[in-house]
């Protein structure tokens, strides 16, 4: 009746805990006493105060802790009273922590802020966790459970057990169970700890592994705890290895999608039209800056749209870069058809001008582009395989843009005209196609697509005048590797290069891996001088 006895013990502990909590007066005093620790200006004292304040279980504690976490807890210089503040309409409003008295607007000069560092923050999170376990918001409950997992403490076992009884949300439940298992590890009872290990074993997370290793490290060699923890780590490792390979593959696809996005516009301007477009990178950069401008406007006029700012930026970036592209084509490039090498010289000049123009307009420093919440953080698709959401979105976006380009070139009237003009300009012209217009539209399409890519790249890279320069060499390489003028080759080529690069990186390092890929491309071209997919037939031989 081992288990039964343990349950009885747990129940007993809960009862005692609750009983202690009911002693109202003692609690109030303890709370005020505990607050004094915040005035001492040392991290250790602050942490002690955090622990004391949360141990009182006083309802006022949560507000104090939250204020502390946000750096809004102040000490009044005159009498060392603790006050928490909030910003409202440009004013700083204060509330006395002990009495709950509203102070109205306060002068910050009269107060010292209670300083917070990572150590304090982590203690506050753990303390807040105990309060937020029963928070009505699921997200808060999960965060609370995560905080307790990261700061495991056997004292939290009863709390967790109690809140688990009422938990309905599966994700929150899983998080709480994990926190419970971690807390059990810290118990001084061997059976509790073994039960904790048994549960943790099922989670293939690197943080769990870390925790188990710590436990194993503290336990005596050969003791049951040590054996169980080491075995658990070993069994997790096999799973983690599989997960790692899956992640590397995903990272490769992600890199591939970045290459695809960077190159797809070039596949049109260079691949289809034959313009050696050195200003391609700047079209990407313009797209990134469009995102920045869109977010600035949204921030000023309607902050509630921030979550969808990126979606708004995509069509606008297409229009901005597309318009610059059309202007470029009509203004200068059209004079150079049939002289492809000279387009290199000219677009190089254009690229210098665009870079400096952006530098003059927006300044030389990086600009901040905010990620919407649906593009931040990770999603766990299987135990131990966590994918970063922005990368997932970018892969999907890359595929979407690719599909759009395929659709436009293959299924629309404009696409038909475009192909006709590329294949036989004279014939197309005599069929009544306005070739000049088609040229401009095609170049505009390629530039616009580059602009859309810029919106995505702004999420992972610097938004600076140099943004485009970083992608230009890679873009040309991808287009040539895939086969100039072949969109399918582009898709396949970029994915292959991305995945190879990522599988090489752990062994060779980032630089050697990249050098190897470059050399591989050079050698590959020897065997397939026209890329992965060469166009067949007369056109290729002409």
């Amino acid at each position, binding site marked *: 009746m081992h288990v039964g006895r343990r349950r009885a013990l747990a129940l007993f502990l809960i009862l005692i805990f609750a009983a202690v909590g009911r002693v109202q007066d003692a609690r109030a005093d303890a709370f005020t006493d505990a607050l004094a620790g915040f005035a001492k200006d040392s991290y250790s004292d602050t942490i002690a105060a955090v622990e004391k304040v949360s141990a009182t279980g006083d309802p006022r504690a949560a507000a104090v802790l939250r204020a502390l976490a946000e750096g809004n807890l102040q000490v009044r210089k005159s009498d060392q009273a603790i006050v928490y503040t909030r910003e409202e309409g440009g004013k700083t409003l204060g509330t006395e922590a002990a009495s709950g008295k509203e102070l109205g607007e306060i002068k910050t000069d009269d107060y010292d802020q209670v300083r917070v560092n990572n150590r304090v923050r982590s203690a506050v999170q753990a303390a807040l966790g105990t309060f937020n376990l029963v928070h009505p918001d699921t997200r808060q409950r999960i965060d609370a459970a995560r905080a307790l997992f990261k700061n495991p403490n056997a004292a939290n076992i009863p709390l967790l057990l109690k809140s688990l009884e009422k938990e309905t949300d599966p994700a929150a439940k899983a998080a709480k169970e994990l926190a419970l298992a971690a807390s059990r590890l810290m118990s001084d009872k061997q059976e509790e700890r073994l039960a904790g290990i048994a549960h943790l074993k099922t989670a293939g997370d690197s943080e769990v592994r870390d925790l188990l290793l710590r436990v194993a490290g503290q336990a005596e060699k050969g003791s049951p705890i040590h054996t169980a923890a080491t075995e658990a780590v070993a069994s997790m490792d096999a799973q983690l290895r599989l997960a790692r390979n899956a992640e590397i593959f995903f990272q490769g696809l992600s890199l591939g999608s970045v290459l695809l996005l960077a190159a797809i516009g070039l596949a049109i301007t*260079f*691949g*289809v*039209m*034959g313009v*050696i477009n*050195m200003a391609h990178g700047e079209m990407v950069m313009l797209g990134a800056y469009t995102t920045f401008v869109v977010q600035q406007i949204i921030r000023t006029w309607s902050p509630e749209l921030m979550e969808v700012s990126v979606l708004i930026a995509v069509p606008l970036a297409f229009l901005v870069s597309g318009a610059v592209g059309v202007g470029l084509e009509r203004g*200068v490039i059209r*004079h*150079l*058809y*049939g*002289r*492809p*090498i*000279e387009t*290199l*010289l*000219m677009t*190089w*000049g*254009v*690229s*210098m*001008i665009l*870079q*400096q*123009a952006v530098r*003059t307009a927006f300044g030389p420093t990086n600009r901040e582009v905010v990620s919407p919440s649906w593009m931040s953080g990770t999603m766990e698709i299987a135990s131990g395989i966590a994918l970063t959401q922005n990368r997932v979105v970018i892969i999907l976006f890359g595929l979407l843009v690719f599909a759009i380009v395929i659709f436009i070139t293959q299924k629309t009237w404009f696409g038909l005209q475009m192909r006709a003009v*590329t*294949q036989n*300009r*004279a014939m197309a012209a005599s069929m009544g196609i306005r*070739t000049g217009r088609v*040229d401009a539209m095609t170049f505009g399409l390629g530039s616009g697509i580059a602009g859309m890519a810029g919106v995505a790249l702004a999420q992972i890279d610097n938004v600076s005048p140099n943004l485009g*320069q970083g992608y*230009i*060499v890679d873009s*040309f*390489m991808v287009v*040539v590797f895939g*086969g*100039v*003028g072949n969109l399918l080759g582009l898709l396949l080529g970029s994915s292959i290069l991305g995945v190879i690069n990522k599988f090489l990186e752990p062994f060779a390092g980032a*630089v050697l891996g*990249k*050098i190897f890929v*470059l050399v591989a*491309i*050079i050698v590959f*071209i*020897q065997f397939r*001088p*026209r890329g992965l997919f*060469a*166009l067949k037939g007369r*056109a*290729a*031989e*002409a």
Partner: protein
Amino acid sequence: MSARLNQSLGRALVSGARPYILAVIVILALLPLLNLAVPPSSPFYLPDFAIKLIGKWLCFAILALAIDLVWGYVGILSLGHGAFFALGGYAMGMYLMRAIGDRGHYKNPLLPDFMVFLNWKELPWYWHGFDNFLFALLMVLLIPGLLAFVFGWLAFRSRITGVYLSIITQAMTFALMLAFFRNDMGFGGNNGLTDFKDILGFNLHTDGTRAGLYWASLAMLIATFLLCRWVVGSKLGRVLTAVRDAESRVRFLGYSVTNYKLFAFVLSAMIAGVAGALYVPQVGIINPSEFSPAASIEAVIWVAVGGRGSLVGAILGAFAVNGAKSWLTSYAPELWLFILGGIFVAVTLFLPRGIVGLFGQKSDGPRISKPSLANLSKMLGTVPPAPKEQRP
């Protein structure tokens, strides 16, 4: 009417240009004397800043000649010639490093400072021999030549042409740049090779040595010019030009196109290497950024601005673009990219034959005509847009 008049006048000019070219050479040759023999108080005194600057441009002009040889006369657009230039520079830099001896920060008689610093205990094998100047000179020619030979042999044999070739030359120089950036490679990483003290025992920081390097660069430029002119004027040169204009036809006539192209490519790489070797002691540093694709593209642009397919044009272009860059970065530091970028656009639009086109000189560059269109479609794998109606 007036255009024709202009052209004929221009041609007359060019035929009579030889005395002017000679005059320019003499002036260039005498310039260092204004630095050495004239006291600094005199209004005719030329600060050694100017000597260094022109010395640098002379090296760039040699590089431009190398590029013009393969691009203007054989139709190989290399976007990686900076790699050969930099390799030549590194070979010279390695000699200069070894020449420092035990005068470095860490006073190690054998190892350069950066190796001591990375805890290396012995000299890597590829650094041996560079204490000998003649060996270093040999390497200046041999290393770029060998790389060009291997690379060119692979590429030309597989008949990689046009833009494909341009892009993989870019990949080559990019890969080399990444490699040289690595500190583990043993070439000093990002800091490159620097802090040189002397060359052949002459202190690099004296006016005399500077003038000597300047004259060496000028002599080398003249020699390279004469060599290139001899090559393009010979029967060999005519075959090369034919390869540029109609490669398949030349092949069908029984010429080994691969060998001809390879010869020109290797020769050009060696010339670029020499330019780099002269450049390094004058600027005092060689760093992997010389391998950057942008540096190579810039060098191609000098040739385009000066006039592709004209040896004089290549030299003029190198001087004009670098002169403009040096001047503008000092006197219009915030605007120079606009101005220089604008010049590039304007040159392509209004001076398709570059600066030499201004003087009406007939460049030997390719005509905008059918053969080049055929080349275009070949490299794109598609049929390109036909040229617009001929502009007058």
